[in-house]
């Protein structure tokens, strides 16, 4: 019976600051008007949570009756989530002011959502992971509909909610089947049960596994559970889109890897085939459809589907390099994707005007710094060295080759070649076309500039000096199996 309250300290800090933000918002809304204080308060919460997360332990530590883990894996993801939330707060500040949705609840929900993600990464049983997933998802359903006066935002929120609830049904059904056959929801006990029976052969357990793939596949936006992504990404406030393209995806992958490597690790042959097909479908559909998009948010939505596909490749490989490569790639993805969305926010106007790819024509002449940053992010996503995206893809594809999935790696490389087309198109439009519009007024504030700077530095740093982070990632996955 261990109830080490310190083990959930980051969660407590976030919850506390979330509520503090709500209270401060209510008490001072009239006086402050600008509500800058709320953003700083939430940032402080994120930073403090990150600091208390750092009391790292070399060995696995269980608490709450072994339902909660704080191993290096969980710590890595904690930092990852806090980083993404922090960056999103930085890029949100001026955006929500512009769109008149500057409510304190916005920051609070971001933090509550992060609590859910942390729980997903550290849950040692299926129940914790499920609750975490729900806390995360419901916060994001609300954030998606945050532009209450906009129909498209409401629609996106409702769609996401309905489909999310639907997918949750599959996930829960899967969990219950796993519980029914193994008699436990504890991941390690499931693992020992499965190993004791010489791998999973029981059809019901396999079906449970399949249904968990469906439920989590929905959250990581893998084809064919991806259909909500473009509509929801387009409808949601842009800063929220940035948030949900990184945080929940990372959290779902964290849960994915924890469940499938810890609990079902001994029989990965069964689930790898299914994920192989998902990976191929996800990469191909994401990249191919992205080509024909004209709205940048939709294009980034499909690009995020494609990136989920690359990450699934690493999951199929399921070797140390693949898993640590996933961790690395997720970190790189946070920098490049939030960076790209930050630029999208800076260049759009009230009511999300200026979201067409053609609106970026001539940016290179008018705002060279923004254009350079955007080029960097696009290059990184396309996987051009020496950006972070290249190194991530390098690790993932070489992991696939190492595990003998040469065909999958080739499909992956072909797909990333296809992706170069639509990423570079933005660069070409920025530098080689005459400007068609005035970019003023820019939605710019010191906070968003800081966010872009962090993203640029991160993208370059991970691309040029990847080995340090890769070492940390490799250390983080030791406790997974």
């Amino acid at each position, binding site marked *: 019976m261990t109830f080490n309250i310190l083990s959930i300290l980051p969660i407590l800090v976030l919850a506390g600051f979330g509520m503090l933000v709500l209270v401060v918002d209510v008490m001072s809304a009239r006086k402050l008007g600008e509500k800058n204080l709320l953003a700083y308060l939430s940032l402080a919460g994120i930073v403090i949570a990150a600091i208390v997360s750092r009391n790292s332990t070399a060995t696995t530590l269980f608490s709450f009756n072994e339902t909660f883990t704080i191993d290096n894996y969980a710590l890595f993801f904690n930092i990852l989530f806090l980083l993404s939330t922090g960056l999103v707060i930085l890029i949100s500040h001026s955006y929500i002011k512009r769109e008149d949705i500057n409510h304190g609840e916005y920051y609070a929900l971001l933090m509550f959502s992060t609590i859910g993600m942390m729980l997903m990464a550290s849950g040692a049983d299926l129940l914790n992971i499920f609750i975490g997933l729900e806390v995360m998802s419901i916060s994001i359903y609300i954030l998606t509909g945050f532009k209450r006066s906009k129909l498209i935002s409401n629609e996106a929120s409702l769609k996401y909610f*309905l489909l999310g609830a639907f997918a949750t049904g*599959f996930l829960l059904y899967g969990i219950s089947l796993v519980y029914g056959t193994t008699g436990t929801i504890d991941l390690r006990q499931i693992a020992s049960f499965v190993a004791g029976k010489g791998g999973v052969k029981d059809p019901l357990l396999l079906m449970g596994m*399949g249904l968990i793939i469906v439920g989590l596949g929905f959250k990581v936006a893998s084809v064919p*559970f991806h*259909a909500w992504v473009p*509509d929801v990404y387009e409808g949601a406030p842009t800063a929220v889109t940035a948030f949900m393209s990184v945080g929940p995806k990372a959290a779902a992958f964290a849960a994915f890897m924890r469940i499938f490597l810890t609990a079902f690790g001994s029989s990965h042959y069964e*689930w790898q085939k*299914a994920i192989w097909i998902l990976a191929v479908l996800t990469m191909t559909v994401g990249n191919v459809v992205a080509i024909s998009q004209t709205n940048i948010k939709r294009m980034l939505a499909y690009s995020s589907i494609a990136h989920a596909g690359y990450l699934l490749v690493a999951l199929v490989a399921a070797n140390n390099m693949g898993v640590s490569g996933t961790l690395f790639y997720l970190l790189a993805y946070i920098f490049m994707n939030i960076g790209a969305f930050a630029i999208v926010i800076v260049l759009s106007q009230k009511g999300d005007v200026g979201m067409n790819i053609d609106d970026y024509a001539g940016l290179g002449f008018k705002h060279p710094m923004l254009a350079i940053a955007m080029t960097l992010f696009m290059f990184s996503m396309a996987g051009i060295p020496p950006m972070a995206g290249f190194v991530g893809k390098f690790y993932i594809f070489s992991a696939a080759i190492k595990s003998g999935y040469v065909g999958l790696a080739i499909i992956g490389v072909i797909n990333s070649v296809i992706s170069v087309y639509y990423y570079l198109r933005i660069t070409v439009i920025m530098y080689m076309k005459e400007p068609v519009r005035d970019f003023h007024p820019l939605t710019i504030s010191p906070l968003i500039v800081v966010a872009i700077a962090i993203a640029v530095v991160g993208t370059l740093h991970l691309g040029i000096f990847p080995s340090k982070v890769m070492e940390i990632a490799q250390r983080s996955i030791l406790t997974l199996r």
Partner: protein
Amino acid sequence: MLNLISLVLLFPLIGTAINGLIGKKLRKETVGYIACGAIGMSFFVAILVFFGLLQLPPESRVFEKQLFNWIESGSFKAAAGLQVDPLSSLMILIITGVGFLIHIYSIGYMHHDKGYHRYFCYLNLFTFSMLLLVLGNNFLLMFIGWEAVGLCSYLLIGFWFEKKSASDAAKKAFIVNRVGDFGFALGIMLIFITFDTIDFTGVFHAASQGNIAVGSFTVTIITLLLFMGATGKSAQIPLYTWLPDAMEGPTPVSALIHAATMVTAGVYMIARCNVLFMLSPFTMTVVACIGAATALFAASIGLVQNDIKRVLAYSTVSQLGYMFLACGVGAFTAGVFHLMTHAFFKALLFLGSGSVIHALSGEQDMRKMGGLKKHIPITYRTFLVGTVAIAGIPPFAGFFSKDEILLEAFVRGNFIYWAVGALAALFTAFYMFRLLIMTFHGKSRVDHHAMEHLHESPKNMTVPLKILAVLALLGGFLGIPGASAINGFLSPVFGEHGHVETHGAEACGSHAACLPYLMMVISTGIAIAGIYLAYLMYIKSPELPKKLAERFSLIYKLLLNKYYIDEIYDALFVNPIKKISLLLWKRVDAQLIDGTVNGVAGFVRGFGSVLRLSQTGYVRNYAFYIVAGCIFIIVFVVFGK
């Protein structure tokens, strides 16, 4: 102190970043101070490193600093590390030292240019790349530096890109270099396949262990490919044509990149890989032949050119040929020694010519100069030092290094190498004094418009000239025969084969012992003969050149038009490729490839549009996909085998 080595790289990078990012908003003075300060500090650290190296015993003068591992996957390991040994420390001294002087010079020279910060940003970036090239401890890093200096060279040749000739020259340099780089890249890949590593230490250790037979096919191919890279970067036959055109860039750039540093990268690379090259006698012969041929060939073109910078450009090509000749006969020390002295006097000559051009408001044609001696005395005096140095009059720097190369060519190679080298030396002395006389002596042919603005350059241009003149005067004493400091210093890198121990060779008999002295006398004689010829033709009887040109009009035309090499290349490669590409474009590309590509692209796009149709916007359809996917996954997981 050796640990400071990364700072040498860091300072220019910081300078690039500052000038590149915010240079536009800074005042011109600040931009200049930042750029020069960066290189100056880098130079200071390079000196510290040099003395740090000197404190070590000679046989352990190798220091490697691992910076970070870039990517590691299986046996492939891409690490970034710096290597300090006598060779690279000498190179960084030259690069930062000469680079520093040229940076200072540029402040004055580029003062009126509107792309001031851009210029200094590129120049710092170039210095960084060049330092990376020489400091890298593996072939990959060297290649990155190699490509980066190529890029900077491209940017700086085309610095005045509004001028069509400048942007054409930049393009030409880039494309010609690409041919060489292709060979270099192939060579590196072959090295990785053969040795399973790309670290210098690993490769050279494996090569020197005797695992590879002397003259084996693999090592011959590797070294030939590496040499192909060197011919591109160092402007040797057949890839030299870009260098004379590269004179379209600002003159300090020509001094730094196209005389003192970048073009010597090929020599550095071969010297660095001396272990590999020594394993392939065939490649060594190729290197020596190409070097000797280039030395003579380029010098002969230089005889009749009228553009002051072009003469210097052909002279550079010719001098680089000497260095390759030295490497080709195995006298790497002599090659590197000449590299160093050449950096001093050629930078001096280029900067001097820049000063002349500056004084004449941009005039480069020597036929419109003359009599400038009294107008720009400092430039004249320093230029004279440089000219004497390159002509090879003792005790100036060029004498010692060139003499050593000729001696080595005679001792290790054969009489033909020596004869070719000596003839080229004669040409060199002639065309350099022709240049000097046409520019500074005789009657003024300057048009009156330029005459009005005629002025000596400002201090920040003349001081670097004076310092370089001192170096060109004294630099040779580092390699004085019999007590050569540079031989001893470089011997850990090149081993026993670096230079010939002729000086202590009493045992070889009196004939061998007095050979060096005989050689010195002969080469001095050759130089004086060349100078006298120039004096005869351009001061004593100025009508003589014209007569000669009429008499030997065929040869004169041939030389004046640079043997029509550019035209031949155009006819042989460029035009056929253009024609073939036109054909390919019209027939194959437009119809076949484009058809296919458009077909594939159209297919992908069409496929995308079909998939887009599935994006109906209805939740029930999306839910339908989920159920379908779910059934599929369950079937696959449960029943799939």
